[in-house]
């Protein structure tokens, strides 16, 4: 068997897999590239699975085989990892993954109502995708943005301080193909594009968006107003012992 498309060929022979299920040569090369970043190749598995999702829209059997092949481990081992982590999806994900935080703080601040409203509006349940394939809705756990509660994530970008109305607006705009920006980041890309960045292939958009959102600056603003600072350094520039006050 040729070494270039081992998985794709095997699959094609066995099941006549649809062309979209076959990993192309570029993706296979990139999987190897990820593994080569690490002192031990298996460390690349998490980013490699992100790349599979980027290329195929979900974790496919072909993607699992490819990772196993590249790392020289069994497909069962890869599968065990893929099923452990919640960001890996077995079913196709829409263009936009919408996650509503319903952990306690966000739930209390309105996340539960936002999630209910979106389920109704999109006519989907948890972890389901709209019929047009545009939106996958999921309730998520704490995403480290509690000072912006209630929080929604779209393709893992922050949508801070949401209301049921603003959340509906966001998904409507996304479905209408209008540009939507993260409240603390760039214009939203697709879920598959986002997964590629997570695989360690940057998309050159780091410079978009602000340095920090308003809540991140709450304490600093007060310190500036009052002239509060950390004490001065205790090291004299001469390196001599300084007098402390």
């Amino acid at each position, binding site marked *: 068997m040729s070494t270039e498309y081992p998985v794709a060929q095997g699959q094609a022979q066995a099941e006549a897999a649809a062309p979209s299920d076959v990993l192309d040569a570029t993706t296979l090369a990139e999987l190897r590239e990820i593994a080569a970043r690490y002192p031990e190749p298996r460390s690349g598995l998490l980013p490699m699975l992100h790349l599979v999702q980027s290329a195929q829209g979900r974790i496919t059997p072909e993607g699992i085989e490819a990772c196993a092949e590249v790392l020289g481990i069994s497909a069962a081992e890869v599968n065990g990892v893929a099923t452990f982590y919640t960001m890996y999806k077995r079913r196709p994900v829409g263009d936009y993954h919408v996650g509503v935080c319903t952990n306690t703080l966000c739930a209390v601040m309105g996340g539960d109502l936002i999630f209910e409203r979106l389920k109704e509006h999109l006519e989907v349940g948890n972890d389901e995708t709209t019929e047009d394939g545009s939106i996958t809705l999921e309730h998520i756990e704490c995403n480290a943005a509690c000072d912006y509660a209630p929080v929604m994530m779209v393709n893992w970008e922050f949508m801070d301080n949401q209301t049921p109305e603003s959340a509906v607006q966001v998904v409507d705009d996304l479905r209408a193909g209008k540009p939507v920006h993260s409240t603390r980041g760039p214009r939203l890309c697709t879920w598959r594009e986002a997964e590629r960045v997570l695989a360690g292939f940057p998309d050159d958009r780091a410079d978009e968006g602000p340095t920090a959102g308003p809540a991140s600056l*709450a304490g600093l603003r007060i310190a500036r107003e009052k002239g509060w600072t950390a004490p001065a*350094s205790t*090291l004299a520039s001469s390196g001599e012992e300084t007098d402390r006050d």
Partner: protein
Amino acid sequence: MTDALTPVLTDNWDAERAWTLAAYEERGGYAALDKAFAMAPDDVIDAVKESGLRGRGGAGFPTGMKWGFIPQDNPRPKYLVVNADESEPGTCKDIPLMMASPHTLVEGVILSAYAIRANTAFIYVRGEVLHVIRRLQRAVQEAYLAGHLGTDIHGSGYHLDLIVHAGAGAYICGEETALLEGLEGRRGQPRLRPPFPAVAGLYASPTVINNVESIASVPSIIANGPAWFAGMGTEKSKGFGIFSLSGHVRNPGQYEAPLGITLRELIDLAGGIREGHELKFWTPGGSSTPLLTPEHLDVPLDFESVGAAGSMLGTRALQLFDETTCVVRAVLRWTEFYKHESCGKCTPCREGTWWLTQTLARLEKGQGTEADLDLLLDQCDNILGRSFCALGDGATSPISSSIKHFRDEYLAHLTNGGCPFDPVASTAFAPAGASA
């Protein structure tokens, strides 16, 4: 007298494009490298020991001491791993830090790796924060191009590679040995200790794992001196930390202050509890730290005092809930979180969190009996101290502390035949003056 707020890590967050190398260097960034390279690595460890810095990831272990445990006579490579998994409910300080000033972390990584003599370092960042990952990737790339990373850094002969590694959604991967499993491409299940990571961590080699904020504090210690750092904070909890206020407070956000500030002072700075309401309960350091009440407003927020008050300083994740919030609903939701995130490795946690959820859900619906409260406490007893890792222990914190402080509210669900609270009243978009 030290000022009430002491911006160090947050000090450049209002700067234009603070995330760029140019902005960071303009403020003296990366200058601490030359200072450190002029010192022996052991002297850098000593400086961090002297500063009194304790881990900012929750447990408060002395950072310099941890570094000192690395067996330098071990011939295997040494590794530094930054824990940027930030997933403990309520915790939201590392993410804005890496978004606003990733170079602070990168500079800290270089200093820390130099101290422990590691030539490879990793930042394990949770996958669910795309833009933060972009900024980290860019910062690392810029640092390589500027000669702060790679071979012969600043002509010192020291070389370091830094890899940004995105996780894939698992709270348990914040636990340091589960994190190592994740970083080795496996299911994130904690490892048996000993051996401790300092002896056999990543790839069975000596490894230091530190929280983002711990590592990001190192450049300021090297630049300003250990005495400067130790001059802030309290006797055994030195220095500053980022306090994250969320929930029913007028101005939620990040407040960087010396350890030992009180919640009363912080709420004052944050403009008070939201209009017309009063504080009911709060977590000092995430959902795994037992709930406190207004009675504890004057507890100094340092490791010792919060411990003496029956909780833990944890990650300084101050989640504040006012009287519109049902404590049973809050606790049930946290418990569902622990059940969902239990890695399944050990029985007390895997089965126990399932049982806790069942019992709590019944109570929340107003079904069950008062005896279920004792059942809950009994279930907690079977998990606390018997679980393989601290996730299981943490799962019991909200339950036992809420029963201790709010037993009557549980009973009210039974007499009321369900939850007596209106869930709309607690929301951020509730009409002003709404009450439970």
